[in-house]
């Protein structure tokens, strides 16, 4: 995936234009796990929406495998901040949603596999309302994985969860990523989250969101929370975000 000069300004009549992305350049390799980190309102979601094909950049190009992005595509699946799973469908139907016209036996097998993978066996016939936040999140992830996408975009997928569930979900996300090897772009506010998960962390400035630095994490999984390297990277990220001395 290659971004060149991606620029976006929101213009609304009667209001001053809001420049959100000043021109972003970034390359992402296949199978990488990238975290996008930056202050609230800096344009992370906007960038992800452009990559996902839900919004268009005013200028610049986004190409994936050499093809410009023209709109949403089942090969690149978005896991939304609000999950976006369908409350009128059971867990099973939600996960099968992207499988379209496949034979039923085939669906049964695929959905079964991913229900197992995200630990939701026994909840096939449950409706999302009866699930906890963490379980809904897992449904959203399973639905995305079930179509075997090349790329998964996640917009603060763990943002709404309590800190314990969040830790567990991170571990699961890593396990799934290691098993299935999709490219993952994950937006987060959380410095720890990015150090625990990412191959590289892209740090944005406040709006308009420039890329301040792309930090290589380069620690093997599983990562030791308190280790020296871990702490160094964490401090570096805090420093970039301008909060090092505030803590």
């Amino acid at each position, binding site marked *: 995936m290659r971004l060149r000069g991606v620029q976006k300004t929101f213009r609304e009549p009667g209001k001053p234009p809001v420049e959100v992305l000043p021109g972003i350049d970034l390359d992402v390799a296949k199978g990488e796990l990238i975290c996008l980190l930056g202050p609230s309102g800096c344009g992370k979601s906007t960038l992800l929406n452009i990559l*996902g094909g839900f919004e268009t950049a005013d200028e610049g190009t986004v190409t994936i495998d050499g093809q410009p992005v023209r709109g949403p595509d*089942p090969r690149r699946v*978005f896991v939304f901040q*609000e999950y*976006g799973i*369908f*409350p*009128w469908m059971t867990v099973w139907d939600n996960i099968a*949603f*992207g499988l379209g016209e496949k034979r039923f036996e085939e669906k049964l097998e695929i959905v079964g596999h991913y229900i197992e993978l995200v630990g939701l066996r026994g909840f096939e016939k449950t409706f999302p309302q009866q699930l906890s936040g963490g379980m809904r999140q897992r449904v959203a992830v399973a639905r995305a994985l079930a179509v075997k996408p090349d790329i998964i975009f996640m917009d603060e997928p763990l943002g709404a969860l309590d800190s314990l569930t969040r830790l567990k979900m991170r571990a699961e996300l890593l396990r799934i990523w290691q098993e299935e090897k999709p490219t993952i772009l994950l937006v987060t506010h959380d410095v720890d989250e990015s150090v625990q998960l990412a191959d590289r962390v892209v740090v944005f400035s406040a709006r308009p969101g420039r890329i301040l630095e792309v930090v290589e994490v380069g620690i093997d999984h599983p990562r030791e929370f308190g280790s020296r390297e871990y702490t160094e990277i964490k401090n570096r990220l805090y420093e970039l975000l301008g909060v090092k001395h505030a803590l």
Partner: protein
Amino acid sequence: MSSRVQRFALPIVVLLVLLAVWSVWAKGGGGGATDFPTPGEVLSGYADQFRTPEGERAPIIVKHVVSSLFRTLSGFLLACMFGVPLGLAIGWYTRAFYALNPLIQMLRPISAIAWIPISIMIFRRDDTRSIFLIFVAAFFPIVVSTAAAVRSIPQVYIRAAQNFGLSGWRLFKKVVLPAALPQVVTAIRVSMGISWIVVVAAEMVAVQEGLGWLIIDARYQGARTDLIVGTMILIGMIGLGLDTVLRKLETLDQVKWGITRRD
């Protein structure tokens, strides 16, 4: 008391208190109102209405209940048949919204009662007149609420569906329709209530049969207030019954998720 018991006991207590107050008040001269019937008189009024006259197969009241119900359901179902698809279209296609919304918003506040003279001019038969009025009364709220339901579907559902390659009719069928359904069902239920209110009003003016007509007729039969109050109570109970039936729709899995209720 457990809440189950309370659910049955509390309304009965309220009802008994009300009956007692009514009874005392009516016996004391009805606060100046001439001849307000006591609960007992209303009951014996029912004896008249539920009597089967010679040569007929059912009590008099049945004919009136049936024609009121027939008109209500016909007008209401027609309103659903046309109103729901139109509302969906207006909600989904921005152009349709621009084109039709102002007109609908203008027609909507016109009370169905105001249409009575028109209905008398256009239609010859009693039934068609009332059905038309009920249609008018139920149609606009259904269209407006259905359109609002579609327009308020969270964007994330639409985007998620598009992400998996859905568009056009399949997007509509698999996401738009089910996402709007709970609000549509609620709109339908509310419109059913409106229809039942309007049928009585319509029958008081435009026709010669039905529960509304029965009330007017009782007035001309030497002010039979016992029949008037009795019919009112009957109207209320049938309305309650209709609402209870439609409430069942809200307990379906496809609908339940979107209905927030505190009990």
